[in-house]
């Protein structure tokens, strides 16, 4: 036990009966481990705070470098291939299931397995730390990624979202597809990949989280053996300044859809949110606009929304948008109804009874986040990247009040700073 307390900052939570072990490894990698010995499966995710929006950066105070859009995603694809053997092939030999994803502000490599955890963990740490790019292999990937880009562009939801972002942000790189374009990825070279790797895959920028049937000390021993000490770099990734106002209030395009799709976004100037505020934002959105609300039933009966109507939230460095999405015969009419409801709730407040329903539901949701290794490890990864304290969301869901909810709600929606994005049917009457 003493070795555990020596090497980890240990947090136990009475409500979930879960323990999370934290440490910052001597190499600089931040680590979180949540053992679940009662389960068969384990999940590990190794991530870097590097995503598609990091396309303009400087290393150690040097000049800023503007790289082609889609580079972080391209790098994610290529890292799976190293000199001796592809990582997928190695994983497949032990029955582990591996994947990776690139977001706007992070790139993550993960696996899940029910046996041979140690071997799978070795593969993960090995390939993520050993890049190998050649002209030929970089060129070869273009065909696969071009197909991936085409696949996204066939999705009207993709156009809806990026049209919304382009209309809300004049310059922020959230405007750009994570995978880039056929033209931008054609500019990617092995040298650029190595340069970005060196900058963003340095241990200070990386986090590792593990959950499931694992022994925390054993995991840390493997980290001691496998995490490579690397030269540390100071990275500054810059996003253009944003004045917090939307560029235009309406945008539309046409697509092969049966009826109009819409996203309505409310923009706020970016600021860091506490975990309590995040929990409150989730609760007030559901209480006022979710299936428990009078608004939802009223709009259903007016035939302005379908069962896919849902509030959402896009929040990352420099971006703060609350949104609503769904299908509607009249996106303008549902926008006006949402505006009215916002003003009404700002005047009259949220129903305390409905707030309490959703608070309880949020509490249940927070408990269930500690149910399976995938969710636990992904949530811990997010906490490590944002510096959030574990179990804080659960504590917030236990104690938030309707007064706090009303305060958050009144700040969240500014009708004069919103954009409606619509995808209309090609063959509209």
């Amino acid at each position, binding site marked *: 036990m003493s070795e555990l307390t020596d090497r980890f900052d240990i947090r136990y939570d009475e*409500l*979930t009966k879960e323990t999370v072990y934290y440490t910052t490894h001597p190499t600089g990698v931040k680590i979180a481990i949540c053992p679940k010995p*009662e*389960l*068969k499966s384990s999940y590990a995710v190794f991530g870097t705070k590097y995503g598609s929006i990091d396309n303009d950066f400087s290393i150690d105070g040097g000049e800023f470098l503007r790289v082609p859009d889609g580079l972080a995603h391209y790098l994610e694809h290529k890292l799976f291939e190293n000199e001796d053997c*592809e990582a*997928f*092939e190695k*994983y*497949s*030999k032990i*029955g582990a*299931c*591996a*994947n990776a994803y690139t977001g706007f502000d992070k790139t993550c490599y993960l696996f899940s*397995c*029910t*046996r041979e955890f140690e071997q799978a963990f070795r593969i993960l740490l090995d390939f993520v730390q050993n890049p190998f790019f050649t002209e030929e292999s970089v060129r*070869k990937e273009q*065909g*696969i*990624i*071009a*197909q*991936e880009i*085409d*696949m996204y*562009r*066939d*999705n*009207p*939801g993709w156009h809806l979202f990026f049209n919304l972002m382009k209309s809300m942000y004049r310059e922020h790189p959230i405007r750009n597809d994570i995978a880039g374009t056929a033209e931008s990825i054609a500019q990617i070279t092995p040298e650029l990949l190595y340069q970005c790797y060196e900058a963003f895959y340095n241990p200070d920028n990386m986090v590792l989280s593990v959950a499931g049937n694992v022994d925390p000390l054993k995991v840390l021993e493997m980290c001691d053996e496998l995490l490579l000490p690397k030269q540390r770099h100071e990275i500054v990734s810059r996003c253009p300044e944003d004045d917090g106002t939307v560029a235009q209030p309406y945008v539309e395009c046409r*697509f*092969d*859809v*049966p009826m109009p799709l819409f996203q309505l976004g409310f923009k706020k100037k970016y600021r860091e949110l506490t975990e309590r505020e995040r929990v409150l934002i989730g609760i007030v959105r559901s209480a006022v606009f*979710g*299936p*428990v*609300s009078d608004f*939802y*039933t009223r709009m259903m*009966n007016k*035939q302005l929304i*379908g*069962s*896919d109507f849902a509030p959402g939230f896009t929040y990352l460095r420099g971006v703060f948008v609350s949104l609503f999405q769904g*299908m509607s015969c009249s996106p303008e009419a549902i926008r006006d109804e949402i505006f009215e409801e916002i003003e009404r709730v700002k005047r009259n407040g949220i129903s305390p*009874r*409905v707030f309490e*329903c*959703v608070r*309880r*539901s949020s509490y*249940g*949701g927070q*408990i*269930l986040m500690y*149910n399976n290794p995938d969710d636990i490890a992904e949530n811990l990864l997010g906490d490590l990247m944002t510096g959030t304290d574990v179990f804080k969301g659960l504590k917030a869901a236990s104690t938030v009040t309707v007064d706090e909810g009303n305060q958050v709600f009144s700040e969240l929606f500014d009708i004069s700073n919103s954009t409606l994005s619509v995808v209309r049917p*090609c063959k509209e009457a």
Partner: protein
Amino acid sequence: METNMYLSTVSEGITFRAVRETRFKNACIGVHFFFPLKREFLTLNAILIAMLRRSCARYPEYNELRRAHAMLYGADSDTSAAIIGNCQMISVEMEMTDDRFIPDGECISGECAGLLSEMIFRPAVGDDGGLFRQDDLDVVLRNAEERIKSLIIDKESYASHRCYEIMCEGEAAGLEPGGYLEDLPGITREALAQAWERMLTSSMVEIIVVGGMDYKPVERIFKKEFGAITRRPAPLPTPPAYKEAETIREVTERVEEKQSRMIMGYRLPVIEPDDRTMAARLMSLMFGGGTASLLFKHVREKLSLCYYCSSSYGRTSGLLFVRSGIDEVNYNQAIDEIKKQLAVIAENAFSDDEFNAARLVALSAYDNISDSVSSIESWYANQYLDGCVRTPAQAAERMMAVTREQLAECASLARLDTIYMLSPELSGQSGDEREGGEEP
């Protein structure tokens, strides 16, 4: 690990299965109704089950019913309709937080089971005293219409749906589990009331509880409810017979899109209760079941022809589908490579590493089933028609007994039936169909 199975008969044709699992923070209850598949009742039953989630006599308004769920710490109920072999299964399921994690020692599992039974046994009543409310029916029909019309939005699912329709016309597998647009106008409250009556009196039923909760009160609730009903359950039909593919049909349909979706539909004479279904499942895993598969390795990684290429096999239909997203110019090359990889398996020419990788992927999948209440629940529900119920561990043991030769035999039995392409529109062209290809 504490696993304890309890099985009882609630009423004629109704089994109650409880799997006691204390490893999780949630629990679930599933109630599954099985009918002989009839085209005339397909849409009606799908709408009926959706109506049960919409309201009940105690909570006639949708938002009140959702609030009742939310108050139970976010208990969530869902309904679904599926086709299994020659049967239709409609289900109501509820997931809830386990009582041990509810503050102040509150016990919600009994209330959750009570709410679920209210939804099933006491539908909302209209102003005229008849069952179901017209307002709810209007919303559910409109949602169904939107869902059916929206199939085209997700091109991958749409291509798959079209391939099923074309390849399995006139067969159970070619029917749409969620129902048909043209049936919606004919669905009335009266028809729903009759369908509800049929569901309670003449379907075969399996009730499954998984979690750490005391299952006895749940069993008592359903015994009492079903005890008050006179039941005449209809026997369920046997799975469909194998239908030989006579010619290879190639169909291309064009829509506005950038990428082509190609589906290759094969038929295997290996349908439950055939002992070789395990071998066919393992064969499909090795063929196109993820990143360890031959299709991923060759079609995607080696030839860079697509972003995805995978296969799936249905043990109750004997159908094997290969799905991929390709550039249309690579059509022939992709087909040739997919056929080549199937031939590698049929000729028993795959490596030991590839065989072992498929076995390990299968083992991992079975292990994962035991790691969540909802997957354990689905596991037993989906075995209802098999006549023999196995635990995931027993199924894994059977799969590990499959030999290379059995796997090769399954691949050699696969007959290509249909190649369906959903492709970008060309100027002045909207679709074409070619028939009369040759067997591979």
